[in-house]
């Protein structure tokens, strides 16, 4: 039914006559654009131009705009331009076009310059330090919320907390057990493989015990919780922020920190020590299994050595760190969640930020704790 657009020109005296045919529609937009471009500057000495549109058999906004653009070009060059034979059905659309694109609008273009990377570095550094402010803010907001809840304990959202605890702790148990068990196995296997060369087999148990109890157990669990629950906190709060649910809460007289964030933080602060304890046990079991099957140690000797190697204080060192790490993960996740702007892209960015920052914080804190415990002799 439709055919490719055409535009033929002929010069009669000082008149340029253009005759159009075919379909002037989006489907042929590329061909049409080239046609119009080519004729826009043709026959510069003709004083008047007429465009015969009577053979055009399909017309849409693309065609209408290109025709309008052609006409504007002719008029700007000081020529008399008119259109003849345009189907009367098409006329209203062409009239619409006379009002559009009258302002000189040009979309902004991003150009690369040699300073761009430096600029980016500066911006990122700035963003990092500015990024600390909302975090501290959140810490303060959570502090006041705790104060308020402490005065009136009935306002604490227990149901929400229990629900969060179920997701953060209970549902995480299988995967945490599995991963820590495997890590225990790997540490023990590596220990036996390398220590055996200088006959220090029995010290593998010391290594596994101390490492797991003091460092690995809590670190692995914290990193897993940051990836599993921290990201989901950020995504949940972020999408609530996007749909103005957080604003709705606020206007109804609720404090979002109290309603949304406190239950999550409390759940996390309870969950991480529990998971750390379970994870450490699983890692020890994994280590024991490898010691018996791969290291050729008898179960009695393994347990005997383990009892000598780990003390109450190594157990405490691991568990004391857990709630602090939980707090850091929760604060980072919730802060980033509330910083989400309107777009899906920003939700993704903030979720990434949340996990990266939380893991970074966990490791930095672990280092600080190590210094602290060393200096108090624990």
């Amino acid at each position: 039914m439709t055919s490719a657009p055409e535009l033929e020109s002929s010069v009669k005296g000082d008149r340029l006559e253009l005759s159009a045919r075919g379909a002037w529609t989006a489907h042929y937009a590329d061909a049409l654009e080239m046609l119009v471009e080519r004729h826009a500057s043709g026959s510069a000495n003709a004083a008047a131009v007429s465009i015969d549109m009577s053979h055009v058999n399909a017309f849409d906004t693309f065609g209408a705009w290109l025709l309008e653009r052609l006409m504007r070009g002719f008029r700007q060059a000081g020529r008399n331009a008119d259109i003849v034979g345009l189907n009367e059905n098409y006329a209203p659309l062409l009239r619409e076009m006379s009002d559009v694109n009258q302002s000189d609008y040009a979309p902004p273009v991003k150009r690369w310059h040699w300073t761009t990377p430096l600029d980016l570095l500066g911006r990122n550094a700035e963003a990092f330090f500015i990024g600390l402010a909302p975090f501290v803010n959140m810490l303060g907001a959570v502090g006041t919320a705790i104060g308020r809840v402490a005065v009136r304990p009935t306002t604490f959202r227990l149901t929400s907390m229990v629900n969060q605890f179920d997701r953060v702790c209970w549902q995480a148990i299988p995967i945490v057990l599995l991963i820590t068990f495997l890590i225990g196995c790997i540490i023990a296997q590596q220990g036996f493989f390398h220590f055996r060369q200088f006959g220090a087999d029995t010290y593998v148990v010391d290594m596994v015990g101390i490492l797991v109890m003091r460092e690995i157990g809590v670190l692995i669990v914290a990193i897993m919780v940051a990836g599993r629950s921290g990201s989901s906190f950020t995504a949940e709060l972020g999408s609530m922020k996007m749909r103005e649910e957080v604003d709705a809460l606020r206007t109804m007289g609720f404090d979002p920190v109290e309603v949304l964030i406190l239950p999550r933080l409390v759940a996390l602060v309870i969950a991480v020590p529990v998971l750390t304890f379970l994870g450490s046990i699983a890692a020890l079991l994994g280590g024991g299994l490898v010691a018996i099957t791969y290291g050729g140690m008898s179960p009695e000797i393994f347990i005997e050595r383990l009892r000598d190697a780990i003390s109450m204080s190594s157990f405490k060192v691991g568990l004391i760190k857990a709630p602090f790490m939980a707090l850091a993960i929760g604060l980072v996740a919730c802060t980033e969640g509330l910083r989400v702007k309107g777009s899906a892209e920003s939700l993704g960015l903030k979720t990434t930020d949340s996990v990266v920052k939380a893991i970074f914080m966990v490791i930095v804190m672990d280092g600080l704790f190590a210094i602290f415990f060393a200096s108090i002799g624990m």
Partner: protein
Amino acid sequence: MIYDPIIKVRDLCVGFGDTQVLKGLSLDVQRGEILGFVGGSGAGKSVLMRTIIGLFPKQGGTIEVFGVNMDRAGERERRTVERRWGVLFQHGALFSSLTVRQNVQFLMREHLDITDKLMNEIAIAKLEMVGLRASDAEKFPSELSGGMTKRVALARALSLDPEIVFLDEPTSGLDPISAAEFDALIHTLQQTLGLTVFMVTHDPQSLHTVCDRIAALSDGVVVAEGDLGTMMLSEHPWVQSYFRGKRAAGGYKPLEMESVGA
């Protein structure tokens, strides 16, 4: 006018879980007409629209668009059909990480091989046609007002000059003047492009001024269809109260009622 339905829906059944929303609905939309689709809140208008465009699965019935049975159509055939329609969702559904201009250009970039210059001009032209300004082009969807979101969504639905547009409550959230301009634009496009419009609406003014035909949905089926006069004479209680009630679409213009009654 020759009888040439561009959308043909027969015995359509759609439900979610236990609740049946559409119960054997049949509807024709003719080429080049503007069909106003009315029904109470929650009656299933959006569900019907989404089922026709293939977003909801149906339990029974057939849907033909451009004479293509959407169940039997292969992947390629579906794609070509989808290219020939534009959709305005009730809540806009703009891409939140693209600017207004990029939203409108999204389909052009995908399907057309034209220069950036033309693409920008067309995008601005479309935005100005729906009543926005060029200065709004670099805003992100989260920075728009409700009415502006509607307009951008319309500009995006019209970006490739489709043959059918599905509009889900296009004028809700617009002030009456903008709504009237919107109706006029739809009318112009219908005249020029031979556009077919399936418009879900609650706006009596739109029903009066631009709709060629109206269909009313109640209890999961189309209970009345025809021009405004036919609707006013309908026996169905819901249709009666819709078109003859206090705030009714029909009560809007008392003169017309008399002429219909006569």
